[in-house]
């Protein structure tokens, strides 16, 4: 069967496709709310039928065939689950080492993959009166700490990619020093990929700084760097990410999120 590439797609659809393709089959994936749930479902419907989703509210390994969950704790996460207790059990499994990947989002990120989803403003002085208060950690910081690896989804804008972020909610490679995570007492390996509306990024093994791996359709290394508030490592072998196929876009639009709960959400510019 010849692959047909989609002719039009939105940045969120692109992010979902990229997220989906990043997930290997047969791995246990702890799903954050929003686009990660959409991407996992897409992966299950394409190359990863053996992906085992874990939801922080308690469901482990359900079939995601009862509609897109609107919450990581709603009834749609529980159908034919392989384990179903509560938040403690989900995070305990993670701390033990059962979760291969954590799949999370954030509002702000630094070069070492540390994420902020708590507040914009000055910290600690302005903590009790933030400029903008965000929803808070939820389970993202726990996933970032204790899943074996983390995949991060971000809207790619300069104001969200900063050398220094307002507040470290979810640890990445911390200050980037050798073994910083291990020294802090963390058990997981840390960030694996950052998937944005413009690129797929990884981290340099030596410096732990963010590194461009692939540009999404329509982007160049320069356009990605221009949209990033800190200097990226841009190696010579950056590839162009394969565009979404007609089938991927069809699945997202018709089957997974037809009402556009997460995928159609307008990205605030």
């Amino acid at each position, binding site marked *: 069967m010849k692959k047909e590439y989609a002719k039009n797609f939105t940045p969120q659809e692109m992010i979902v496709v990229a997220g989906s393709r990043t997930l290997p089959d047969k791995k246990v994936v702890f799903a954050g*709310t*929003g686009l990660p749930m959409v991407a996992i479902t897409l992966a299950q419907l394409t190359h990863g039928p053996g992906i085992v989703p874990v939801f*922080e*509210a*308690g*469901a482990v390994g359900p079939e995601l065939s*009862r*509609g897109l969950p*609107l*919450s*990581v*704790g*709603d*009834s*749609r*996460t*529980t*159908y034919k689950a392989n384990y*179903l*207790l*509560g*938040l*403690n059990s989900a*995070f305990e499994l993670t*701390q033990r080492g059962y979760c291969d990947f954590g799949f999370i989002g954030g509002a702000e990120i630094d070069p070492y993959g540390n994420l902020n989803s*708590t507040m914009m403003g000055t*910290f*600690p002085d302005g*903590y*009790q*009166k*933030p*400029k*903008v*208060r*965000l*929803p*808070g*950690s*939820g*389970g*993202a*910081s*726990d996933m*970032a*700490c*204790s899943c074996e690896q983390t995949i991060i989804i971000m809207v790619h804008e300069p104001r969200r990619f900063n050398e220094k972020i307002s*507040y*470290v*909610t*979810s*640890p990445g490679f911390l200050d980037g020093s050798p073994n*910083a*995570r291990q*020294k*802090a*007492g*963390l*058990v997981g390996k840390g960030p694996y990929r950052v998937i944005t509306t413009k690129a797929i990024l990884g981290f340099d093994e030596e410096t732990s700084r963010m590194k461009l791996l692939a540009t999404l359709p329509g982007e160049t290394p320069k356009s990605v760097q221009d949209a990033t508030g800190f200097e990226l490592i841009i190696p010579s072998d950056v590839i162009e990410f394969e565009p979404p196929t007609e089938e991927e876009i069809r699945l997202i639009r018709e089957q997974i999120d037809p009402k556009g*709960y997460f995928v159609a959400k307008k990205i605030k510019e």
Partner: protein
Amino acid sequence: MYWTGLSPDEARQYLANKDKSKKDKRMTLKAAVEKFVNDGDNIGIGGFVNARQPIAIVHEIIRQGRKDLILSFQSAGLAPEYLAGAMAIDPDHLSIKRMELAYFAHEAFGISPLLRYLTENSLVELEDWSNYNMSARFKAASIGLPFIPCRSPLGSDMLQTNRAKVITCPFTERPIMLLPASHPNVALIHVQEADIYGNCRIQGPLYTCPEIAMAAANIIVTCDRLIEYDEMTRYPNRISLPYFAVDAVIEVPFGSYPGNCNGIHYFDEQHIQEFRGLCEKARKGDKAGLKEYYDKYIFGVKNTTEFVNQLPLSQIQHVQKIEPGIRLDAGFTVLE
């Protein structure tokens, strides 16, 4: 070190002195809130974001009014939003003093307007934790420990402002976090099924409900359906909360509406968006619509029955129809 709610020693003593006998704990929700929710209390809120939150209890607290509340929860949406809305309308009737939280928003339905309102205007004191942290803090308390270790989020900025302590593990010599127990004065829990003594059978994700309940000094339980004791104890492996943890049991169908209650109904998305939209307007300064909403659905009614009676039946039928959780099939007593 300071404790909010009860200290571990106070919590143990309170429970040791408590009558733990098996007795009929039914009462009205009004009486339960009068008896067990006081000004200044640390309130443990059950459910997760907008699923199985104790909305009926929260509405009753709003009707009665309480001051200087401390709210403790992992991830919550509607319950704190309703309380914050009451505060936005009239802080002399109801006020929140402090929140110990991991997440306050509505996932697919958007961020919390009134979290922004309260915090950006510095109207409440904040203590941020992760979901696992709050769940583990309730767990430590529920099992009689002053603290529990945790590996996350070591390295985060949360540790600079919350009460967790990082020590060197005496066994591995590596850093580890210790989380202080959280013993709320009262836990608010909604479940699908309970019996008159307080045994609860939760269906679907348990969230942190058993831990919050057993951590607290007193527990109010609302249930969609009271079932017979014999039916409850026929499947002891399915009892999620033993009767002696519970102080008040109230049958309140739709007690977590407009949220999702596994096996009973899905989200009433329309009503959530309506309420959230009014909260967003209130955040921006226009509180009239929110006030109208409270007058109509909370202050203008006596209870949850009168609240849901104002909603179109077709809407109720719709959220029941689209609920994919396993339907309940317990035997229950029919009382007139």
